[in-house]
């Protein structure tokens, strides 16, 4: 595939949503006259994603992440703007396009509920026209990596959430998609399962050169998997670039934390940096990057100093601050930050 895997230009999506007041009277009135309100889910979004990239879509609930993903996968029609995925217009749902992508939704299933997952795998083998040797090889790899040898033969309804999600992922990858859309793939999973799924997605991207586009409420998923993030808020592009670039822009201070028996007085701490927390024998400071060596040298002098850490502010905090700035900017035309 030549050129970017995904090109989005001026994408806008508006929904017409019925609305009514609460109560029986309003319910009867709605039978004869329905009121509609127009909701703009995405506003003139533009970005491009190169083949093989891992990109995370971040934003609060209702920001337009999933809507964007659904348009990219050809499920929704844009109201305005153009979209190209693998060189295709997704909404034509050309078979070549459908064979080149896969969409995994953590809260949706493609597996037949009352049949074993292996029946859906077999259906996918035929409808995606996968030749038998390739199918066997891919299924073998997926079964081994996802450890689903036993569970794929049980009716899907009897599987745990994690087992079902692994089978969903196997079904989505059997045809070897070059672009993988993942919408909240780890939702509801325990930490061990999240880690294993994350690792699997990373390996799939590295081994197959597949483009991965991910949305997740778990910032750890995005931080661990995606060198690039696209932040959407209220349908607007707020940032496009690396997590480091976002952190430098929003929270340029480095976070230094240390455990010590006897912490310096607060006046002295204030000279070192901005105090975030001093509870439970642990001191956490936000420090100007240029002063980090100086502050560290002071902290290592503290009695019984241990567990010294220098890090960026957690992504959650960076995002919270970005969104609160977006809210503050609301009403004024704001340009996306970052360097896409």
């Amino acid at each position, binding site marked *: 595939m030549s050129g970017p895997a995904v090109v989005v230009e001026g994408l806008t999506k508006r929904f017409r949503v019925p609305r009514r007041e609460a109560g029986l009277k309003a319910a009867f009135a709605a039978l004869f006259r329905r009121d509609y309100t127009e909701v703009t889910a995405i506003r003139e979004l533009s970005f491009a994603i190169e083949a093989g990239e891992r990109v995370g879509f971040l934003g609060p609930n209702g920001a337009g992440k999933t809507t964007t993903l659904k348009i990219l996968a050809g499920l*929704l029609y844009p109201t305005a703007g153009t979209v190209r995925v693998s060189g295709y217009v997704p909404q034509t749902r050309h078979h070549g396009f459908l064979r080149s992508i896969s969409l995994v939704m953590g809260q949706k299933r493609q597996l*037949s509920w009352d049949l074993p997952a292996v029946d859906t795998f077999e259906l996918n083998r035929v409808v995606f026209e996968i030749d038998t040797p390739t199918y066997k090889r891919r299924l073998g790899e997926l079964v081994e990596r996802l450890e689903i040898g036993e569970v794929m033969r049980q009716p899907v309804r009897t599987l745990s959430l994690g087992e079902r999600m692994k089978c969903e992922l196997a079904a989505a990858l059997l045809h070897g998609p070059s672009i993988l859309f993942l919408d909240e793939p780890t939702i509801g999973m325990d930490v061990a399962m999240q880690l294993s799924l994350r690792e699997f997605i990373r390996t799939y991207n590295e081994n197959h050169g597949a483009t991965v586009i991910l949305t997740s409420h778990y910032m750890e998923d995005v931080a661990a998997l995606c060198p690039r993030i696209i932040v959407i808020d209220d349908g607007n592009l707020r940032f496009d670039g690396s997590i480091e670039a976002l952190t430098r822009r929003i929270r340029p201070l480095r976070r230094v934390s240390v455990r010590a028996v006897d912490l310096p007085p607060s006046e002295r701490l204030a000279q070192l940096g901005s105090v975030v927390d001093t509870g439970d024998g642990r001191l956490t400071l936000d420090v100007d990057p240029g002063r980090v060596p100086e502050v560290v040298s002071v902290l290592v002098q503290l009695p019984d100093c241990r567990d010294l850490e220098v890090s960026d502010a957690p992504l959650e905090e960076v995002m919270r601050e970005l969104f609160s700035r977006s809210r503050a900017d609301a009403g004024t035309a704001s340009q996306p930050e970052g360097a896409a």
Partner: protein
Amino acid sequence: MKPRKWLAIFRLGLAEAIAYRTALFVWILASCFPLVALALWAGMAAKSPVGDYTQADFVGYFVTAFLVRQLTSSWVVWDLDRQIRTGELSTLMLRPVHPLVHHLVANIAALPVRLLLALPLGLAVLLFVGAGTLDTSLVTLTMIVPALVGGWLIVFISQVIIGCLAFWVTSATGIYDFWLGFFVVLSGYVVPISLMPEGVVAVVDLLPFHASFGFIVELATGKLATGEAWRGLGVQWVWVGLHALMARLCWRRGLRVYGAVGA
């Protein structure tokens, strides 16, 4: 679409029909209404024929009606309504097979299981009340298969059209219940239409309800002259074409407003 794809969806549909065999059997029992109608009409015709129907004719008509209903049934309206409302349709839209083709094949796949479960019941009734008059003339044997296919297609496609309304309304199945009311009265499901007043028969005969059901039963029970049978088949397939055009329009327009709700 390649036959292998049809076969794969057929196998999955068959596997689901087998997995839901108890529910399917209960559904078959629930569609036994023609056998109830049989008891009523056969009782009324015990002493003298009702219109052009003798008691034996009623037995033949309603047992055939029961089996034709099994062979021309579809449930795509419920599937489409749910899939559109909940966003489950997205799964089918992501496969390189048209979602309606998927439904078509999956619905056909359940027919053998339905017939397997319904045939013993039909045969038992025939044995109990005495064999009715099933027509085995060459014309009927030639036409019965295209008539059954046409009847099934009208039922299936009309359900697709109504199911597609879920793109715009909250529940399409409520509209289908309304449609079903017309079907029950005008298709020949509870009363052979030739027993209706003459003026009504002329109109009902041209409607899709009768074309999808009563026409096939009348054909199979030898109630139609050769000319009437060909005319009936013609009317039926015109309805198939009109339904297909309407379904295409509803589907294409509907996809533009599809919300793919949920996750």
